[in-house]
């Protein structure tokens, strides 16, 4: 079938849907929506609609990014704009059906915003909301709008027209177009994509491989998952374009097993591509052959590294190899191989659809285009965002993210996951681009942004990241295997109150040795969280080491709980709840915590009635309390 025919058919189908007399209900049912209860909401809609004999189209869509307001449901009623409702529970569903679908009240009190043309009084425009206003959605353009399991929805929105354009061009022209767009690898390293393709294109050999790296292993990152769940075809179209440009005949999608929904959607998408002649032999009559298969990752962070990933595809232990030879020269089974990240490939499809000139209007001189970020941690509005590169961290955290949750103070922002660094408030006005973040000591990474507030201990935070990288070190090279273990030992000692004066110097030296001496990027970047916290939050290390004090009151061994004698009313609640029986006292007598028995679980603090507020948590200080229970102050 010719592409025009496929396109016409898809467009006709979409038009019919758009002009349908039936109301449409779109439920955001990506993994994040599901964990918030989207499937219950979906089921309730189906049941309640059936009960009232209302003929409606209920479909699942991907994540639109406002994860903190999940589950999100959009209702498109003929004659009205599309309205998005947030935090929808099964209890609200009958109300929406009765009030809006049956009567004509769109319930502005429950609505979040209108999407697209048209306005409704009392409901703001969705894309004018503070979290969305500064965003530019290219990679996420279809997420939350189309049915990810229906290839026609993607095609009707311009999908595969980039590939159709590509096969009219020569591979060299495509590579030039990608070079012109300035696109750089979105997996984190930021290597120019066009250049990478050119190396593989020029590499001799008839058999070449293309790999989509969907092994999103950074804790705190979920950008790739959202794209694969919400718009898998955009990634697959990017793969077709890349394969054609470099001359690959076979492709792999290496996706982590922790993403079952993404894997399911990819499988459905591949089957549809085959049905439409977009995969296999002589694709769209162009003479280009390409096959794709999914490889499920088996849980190893290091497999995000290119050479380790290739070893894993070959069925071996996922251990990195020295480069050169680069994958473009000798990759899977010794053949030239090109590896791109999910987001890079989704962007490629958009660039070929709309042109490099259109793409370069976004971003900075050296970092073009947009980037998705997973915004999480102690921030008000968590979720998935896409912004033009060059935006400041402050804009991301405060304008888009709404600032710090629970009126706490900002302390640090970690970009780039365990390979990245912790930046402080002095960096908030830095533009987010590859070079600036690297210069500040962090990295762009794949796009995780975790915000820490005053209650986060940064020594403990650095220890958290190192615990992760240490466990994930493949063990092949000594600096990484032994060095990260030694660093972790020192950090453990410091957080337990056994830190020594020279520990800071030791950490610094070890970190630099590991960074410079490791074989792959896992080891090369593992010390980053420690290096940056040592640089920007050294006072916290010093407090732990010199004063045996944890300023954020996090490190268990360094905090104590006390019951304040002047506030305790002797109500027995903490005493009864203490899991280790460390509290003594009786009714109307001041309770006392036996510091030797106390396991510092914090139960007493959480159960003490707020009107008494008698339990306090301190670090580095001792509070005077009586040795034996005495009558409470109010009875004296």
């Amino acid at each position, binding site marked *: 079938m010719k592409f025009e025919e496929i396109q016409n058919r898809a467009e006709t189908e979409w038009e019919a849907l758009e002009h349908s007399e039936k109301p449409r209900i779109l439920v955001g049912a990506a993994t994040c929506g599901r*964990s918030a209860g989207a499937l219950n909401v979906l089921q309730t809609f189906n049941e309640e609609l059936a009960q009232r004999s209302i003929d409606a189209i209920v479909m699942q869509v991907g994540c639109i990014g406002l994860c903190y307001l999940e589950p999100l449901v959009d209702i498109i009623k003929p004659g009205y704009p599309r309205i998005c409702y947030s935090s929808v529970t099964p209890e609200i569903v009958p109300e929406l059906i009765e009030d809006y679908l049956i009567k004509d009240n769109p319930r502005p009190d429950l609505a979040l915003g209108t999407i697209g043309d048209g306005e409704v009084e009392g409901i703001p425009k969705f894309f004018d909301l503070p979290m969305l206003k500064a965003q530019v959605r290219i990679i996420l353009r279809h997420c939350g709008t189309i049915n990810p399991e229906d290839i026609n929805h993607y095609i009707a929105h311009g999908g595969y027209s980039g590939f159709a354009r590509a096969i009219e061009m020569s591979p060299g022209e495509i590579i030039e177009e990608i070079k012109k767009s300035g696109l750089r690898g979105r997996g984190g390293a930021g290597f120019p994509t066009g250049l990478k393709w050119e190396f593989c294109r020029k590499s001799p050999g008839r058999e070449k491989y293309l790999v989509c790296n969907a092994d999103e*292993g950074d804790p705190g990152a979920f950008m790739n998952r959202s794209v694969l769940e919400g718009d898998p075809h955009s990634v697959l179209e990017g793969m077709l374009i890349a394969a054609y440009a470099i001359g690959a005949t076979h492709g792999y999608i290496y996706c982590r097993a922790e993403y079952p929904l993404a894997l399911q959607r990819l499988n459905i998408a591949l089957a549809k591509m085959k049905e439409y002649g977009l995969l296999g032999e002589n694709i769209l009559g162009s003479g280009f052959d390409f096959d794709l298969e999914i490889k499920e990752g088996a849980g190893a962070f290091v497999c995000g590294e290119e050479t380790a990933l290739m070893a894993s595809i070959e069925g071996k232990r996922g251990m990195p190899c020295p480069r050169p030879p680069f994958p473009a020269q000798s990759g899977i089974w010794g053949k030239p191989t090109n590896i791109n990240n999910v987001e890079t490939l989704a962007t490629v499809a958009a660039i070929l659809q709309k042109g490099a000139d259109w793409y370069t209007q976004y971003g900075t001189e050296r970092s073009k285009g947009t980037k998705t970020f997973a915004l999480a941690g102690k921030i008000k509005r968590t979720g998935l965002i896409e912004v033009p590169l060059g935006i400041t961290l402050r804009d991301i955290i405060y304008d888009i993210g709404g600032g710090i949750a629970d009126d706490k103070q900002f302390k640090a922002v970690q970009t780039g996951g365990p390979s990245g660094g912790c930046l402080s408030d002095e960096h908030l006005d830095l533009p987010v681009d590859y070079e600036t973040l690297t210069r500040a000591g962090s990295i762009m990474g794949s796009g995780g942004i975790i915000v820490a507030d005053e209650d*986060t201990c940064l020594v403990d935070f650095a220890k958290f990241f190192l615990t992760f990288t240490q466990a994930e070190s493949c063990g092949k090279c000594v600096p990484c295997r032994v060095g990260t273990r030694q660093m972790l030992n020192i950090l453990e000692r410091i957080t337990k109150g056994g830190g020594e004066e020279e520990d800071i110097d030791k950490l610094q030296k070890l970190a630099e040795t590991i960074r410079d001496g490791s074989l792959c990027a896992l080891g090369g970047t593992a010390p980053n969280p420690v290096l940056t916290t040592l640089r920007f939050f050294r006072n916290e290390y010093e407090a732990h080491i010199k004063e045996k004090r944890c300023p954020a009151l996090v490190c268990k061994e360094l905090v104590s709980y006390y019951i304040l004698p002047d506030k305790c009313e002797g109500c027995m609640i903490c005493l009864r709840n203490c899991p280790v029986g460390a509290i003594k006292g009786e009714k109307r007598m001041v309770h006392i915590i036996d510091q030797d028995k106390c396991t510092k679980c914090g139960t007493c603090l959480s159960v003490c009635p707020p009107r008494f507020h008698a339990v306090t948590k301190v670090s580095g200080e001792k509070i005077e309390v009586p040795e034996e229970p005495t009558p409470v102050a109010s009875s004296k």
Partner: protein
Amino acid sequence: MYNKLAELLAPYEGEKGALIPILQKVQGEFGYLSDKAIHEIAHFMGTSESEIFGVATFYAQFRFTPRGKHVVKVCLGTSCYVRGATQIMEALEQKLGIKSGDTTSDLEFSFERVACFGCCALSPIIVVDDTVYSKITAEKAKQIVSSYE
């Protein structure tokens, strides 16, 4: 078991790089990789058991002991961590009476820690079998696990 294994392995005859998919398939069927299964896979692939063990032990996904009826996973990703996953971990260790990586002696529950589920915006997260629970507290986590007893 041998018949079932042979049936599972047959489609991979002669396929390059099939070891990891084979291990996934076998574990999916039997719940874990038994010594017998490893022996059979080695025989099928024409290699040694130590080769197979070498690959299998490298990846976090593979297990060599039977798993409980329900699997409780606590996410210890960065976002969950800053929002109190450690307390949830401790509460569940206490509740189940086992450490992460272990299975209760009645084979009812296995308890695991996971690096990240990618639901960071709704952290902290726990996953029981295939159900994801978001915005969990230590107290809620114990209640959720109780509901599977």
